[in-house]
């Protein structure tokens, strides 16, 4: 049997790692809640396209983060008790949570690549659904209006997206306005500052940069929160579980 001193050191290491993993799991839980709450209100862009697994990954991470917290506390108890049955239960539960968290990280990263790998998906969605009178259309219109006003941008890559491509907006409102009036600068009374200048495209009266950089940075921020932080927790838990398995084999 391993010397009692060695076993005690291993037990202390397992307990400390479990304490750290419990804290990391709780942080993952909190971070995933932040992503799921979607403070930037950009969910419709991924929801309408059907690829909303960044948020699904966040929901999974909420559960796995909290499960890591609870199971690691149980792991501290099991390591202290030095009972094989408890350690075995701990190892199996941690492995199951590990698998779920892997799924969350991978699916969030993959869906981010689909949505904002290049601007085509977002641009196509904007042209098709903006000003359309359907559920999806209303959601997209509301989201884009908010983004254009808050971030001071127009179109996906530039306002010329509205000019170059056919769109529901173009079909509904003709060619009087080259782009929606939300692209125009507004006074504090929310009236358009200079609607004639906006129609001809004077750069002082409208927003001329595209909105894609903002959308891409927000969705990337959500994804990196779920998948990169989840990945780092997974790596730590991986090595901790290896140490716990060694401890398990050394137990009586």
């Amino acid at each position: 049997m391993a010397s009692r001193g060695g076993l005690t050191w291993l037990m202390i290491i397992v307990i400390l790692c479990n304490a750290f993993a419990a804290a990391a799991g709780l942080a993952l839980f909190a971070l995933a809640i932040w992503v799921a709450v979607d403070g930037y209100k950009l969910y419709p862009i991924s929801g309408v396209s059907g690829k909303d697994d960044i948020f699904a990954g966040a929901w999974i991470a909420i559960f796995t983060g909290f499960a890591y917290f609870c199971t690691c506390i149980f792991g501290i108890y099991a390591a202290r008790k030095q009972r094989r049955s408890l350690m075995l239960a701990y190892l199996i539960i941690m492995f199951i949570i590990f698998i779920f968290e892997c799924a969350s990280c991978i699916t969030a990263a993959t869906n981010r690549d689909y949505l904002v790998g290049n601007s085509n998906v977002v641009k196509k969605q904007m042209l098709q659904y903006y000003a359309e009178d359907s559920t999806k259309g209303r959601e997209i219109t509301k989201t884009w209006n908010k983004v254009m006003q808050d971030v001071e941008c127009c179109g996906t890559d530039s306002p010329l997206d509205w000019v170059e491509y056919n769109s529901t907006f173009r079909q509904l409102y003709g060619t009087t306005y080259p782009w929606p009036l939300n692209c125009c600068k507004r006074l504090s009374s929310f009236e358009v500052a200079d609607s004639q200048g906006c129609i001809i495209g004077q750069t002082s009266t409208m927003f001329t940069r595209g909105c894609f950089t903002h959308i891409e940075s927000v969705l990337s921020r959500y994804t990196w929160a779920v998948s990169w932080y989840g990945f780092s927790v997974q790596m730590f838990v991986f090595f901790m579980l290896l140490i716990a398995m060694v401890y398990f084999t050394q137990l009586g």
Partner: protein
Amino acid sequence: MEVYLVLCFICMLPIPAKSITTVDCKPAINESLAAKITINTVILQQPRCCFDNLTNLPCTSNTCEIWLVPAVDTGLSTFDANKASSAILSLSPYPTAFTGSSPANYFLTKVGLQSDFPCVSPSPGGYFRVGADGACSTTNCNGFLPQGSSPSFKYLLVDSVNKTVLAETKWSDSIALYTLKDPGTLGDGFAGRSGAMVIITTLLSVAAAVLLLFLIVVLALCCCGGKSKGSGSVVGSVMGSFRIPRYDTHHLKDPAPYDNPAYEKERKYTTQDTLPKTKATSAVNPVTQDTIKLQKI
């Protein structure tokens, strides 16, 4: 008769047609505006300093008008052939300019008075939007250009009294209007895998597989492999919880220390045979074992 003949002779003399001066100006797009080209409108720079150096004009800058000719394809040559005509302003009305079996492919629209465009502009940012009137129906309205066409433009100096062209600029370069592209042509398929996604996927998959493997190995080693191995490392597996290597059995007639066979291999103590024979070791008399006599050692 002679007077009649002289008059006829004078009449037959060719009347010199007033030639149209071509000034060295070329209409250009106003590059600073975002909507300079759309599918049916173009925003041009204003015609400043184009006609200001002309002399001997029958109109003053307050009565000379500046007009614009947008022309497409054959319209350029058609207009150039007809520009000396005195009815040029209404020769090709806008509603029929681009329609029909053999359209004229040009129209004329008024830009303003020459005095509206002095050489030194009082305020910057002047522009003229061709197509501002939309789908209009008067003869000289500023209507939409044909979608997707490549028009050229020319400014004219027109006498407001005679309605004839006095001077003109050169033709501009042909400006290609946008044709509306179908958003379905935007390829929204494979956008490429980012490096982050590849790293996360491979490392996590490998980690999960390794963990599963080690878990199975550990379970196999500890739960299933334990029964087939010897008990050398296990304390007391033969005698249950007895951990005593050697003990006296007090109920026997011939008490001799009992050697626990579980400790066969680990015998580091003396046996009955190797104990030193002193009186102290034979203190118990088997005959009178029930009475204990103290003996002096």
